[in-house]
């Protein structure tokens, strides 16, 4: 499991800019950012190099923020990559709350980020032969 930074944001102009500026000034490098929104508010989900520090920076900036454990699976960056992962989970009846993907700078593989409220999910994927990433594969451990 890896830590995703989740932030509650009101739909107010400039608010996302303030968030990203705060992270930028703290030298935090984002791997992925995904916005889920309604007309009133949004939830920003971030994979970055130092999630604990990002949380501290955002809390100090007055944001409502939490760290959410999610599963990161490395798949070949080719058509059908995510579908295979989802089918594997579907076969054992595991429900995905949400998912998004990003491509790593190395270029050869993509990372699928999955939120699944079931502790068996990571094992199911590993047993099926997928590369489930650990924190050290994605970000340096926070210097705390």
């Amino acid at each position, binding site marked *: 499991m890896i830590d*995703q930074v*989740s932030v*509650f*944001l*009101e739909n107010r102009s400039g*608010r996302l800019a303030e968030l990203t500026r705060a992270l930028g000034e703290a030298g935090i490098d984002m791997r992925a950012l995904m916005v*889920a*929104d*309604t007309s*009133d*508010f*949004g*939830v920003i*989900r971030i994979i970055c190099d130092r999630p604990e520090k990002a949380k501290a920076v955002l*809390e100090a900036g*007055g*944001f*409502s923020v*939490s760290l*959410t454990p999610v599963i990161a699976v490395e798949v070949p960056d080719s058509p059908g990559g995510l579908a295979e992962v989802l089918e594997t989970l579907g076969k054992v009846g595991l429900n995905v*709350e*949400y998912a998004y993907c990003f491509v790593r700078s190395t270029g050869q593989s993509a990372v699928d980020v999955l*939120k699944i409220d079931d502790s068996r999910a990571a094992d199911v994927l590993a047993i099926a032969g997928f590369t489930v990433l650990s924190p050290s594969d994605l970000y340096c451990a926070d210097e705390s």
Partner: protein
Amino acid sequence: MFQPELEAMPRRDLEALQLERLCGLLSRVYATVPTYRRLFDEAGFDPASLTSLDGLRKVPFTVKDDLRAGYPYGMFSAPLRDIVRVHSSSGTTGQVTVVGYTKGDIERWSELMARTYACAGATADDIVQVTYGYGLFTGGLGAHYGSERLGALTVPVSGGNTKRQVQILSDFGVTVLACTPSYALLIAETAREMGVDPRALPLRIGVFGAEPWSESMRHQIEDELGLLAIDIYGLSEVMGPGVASECVHQCGLHVFEDHFLVEIVDTETLQPLPDGETGEVVFTTLTKEGIPVVRYRTRDVSRIIPEPCACGRTFRRIERVTGRSDDMIIIRGVNVYPSQIEQVLLGIPMVAPHYQVVLSKSGSMDRVEVHVEVAPELDFDEVRALESLQRQVKGAIESALAVSIGVKLVEPKSIARSEGKAKRVVDLRGEGGSTS
């Protein structure tokens, strides 16, 4: 107890004292204040005819507009050379009102505020930090003089600069905090941000007033600051803080009846209500010289609790003021007090009790949107969970108020914190609309 010979007086003796003082008051205002002479004459009331406290029901009411019309000194009963201080209301809802105090008034006020601290359990050994604003507002100087009269070490910080308030609370070993309840929460929040554990401060008592607050908010303040939170009551037109106060049993506020006559009247018919029934609180000042008031309608809503209190005081209690009829919002014909909303929010752990009610018009219909801050430690990452929280808040408020509303979840600390009275209602309904 501070003054048992007065505060625990047998009711019969108290009523005799009240009648004697009331007779003196009515003849005095009739002779010295043209407005009372006119009001009494119009009502055909002869002050010399009063022979019992019950006769008070024949005396006409006074309202804030009477004080406004007399701006600045028109309602004073004492000559200006005998007035040693004035205070003034904030004037947010219209023309300001000015109240004057003679030397004797200041002495009595100090004594009554000292009683208030004593009611809360404070003694001359305490260190009192006064964060009510000093100045024209009665809160600061009222709380200050009372604390000195009690003999406590008094720290006159006044309002503002919350970090400095925390620093002083900590450095000076303050044991009693006097401020508004919403400011007490801001102090706790600020202390945590500064890395100071508010529960570890030597504070043991809070005397909180000047705005309506709920029982759940009391529990939250007591929990966050680790003190006994006492509700105190007063208004500048009647004197300032020190008109009534809870004792350590926290079961209603003892009205200092040797100085103030309290009545509860029906908000529609203005007929006096029996003890126990809820209505508008009306005060008559028995001993004030500068600007006495006769049957002054406070707009505050409460009821009298006549049963004896465990503390031994014989002064009757009024229930915690649930709201001012001024603050009362009428939403599609339903009377709503902002404090009801606060009560609901304190019961939902994922939101903070910081809220603002925004009133607007959608066509001819009133539209109400309650802005509620999510808790800073909210544990979520799904829109669905937030939507369900939003529905939960909406459902809980609607069932408490019996009126349909909208709820908007907003970020922590995005609703402006007040260092004085919290601004809970924003009325955008246009013509005739105002903010309070």
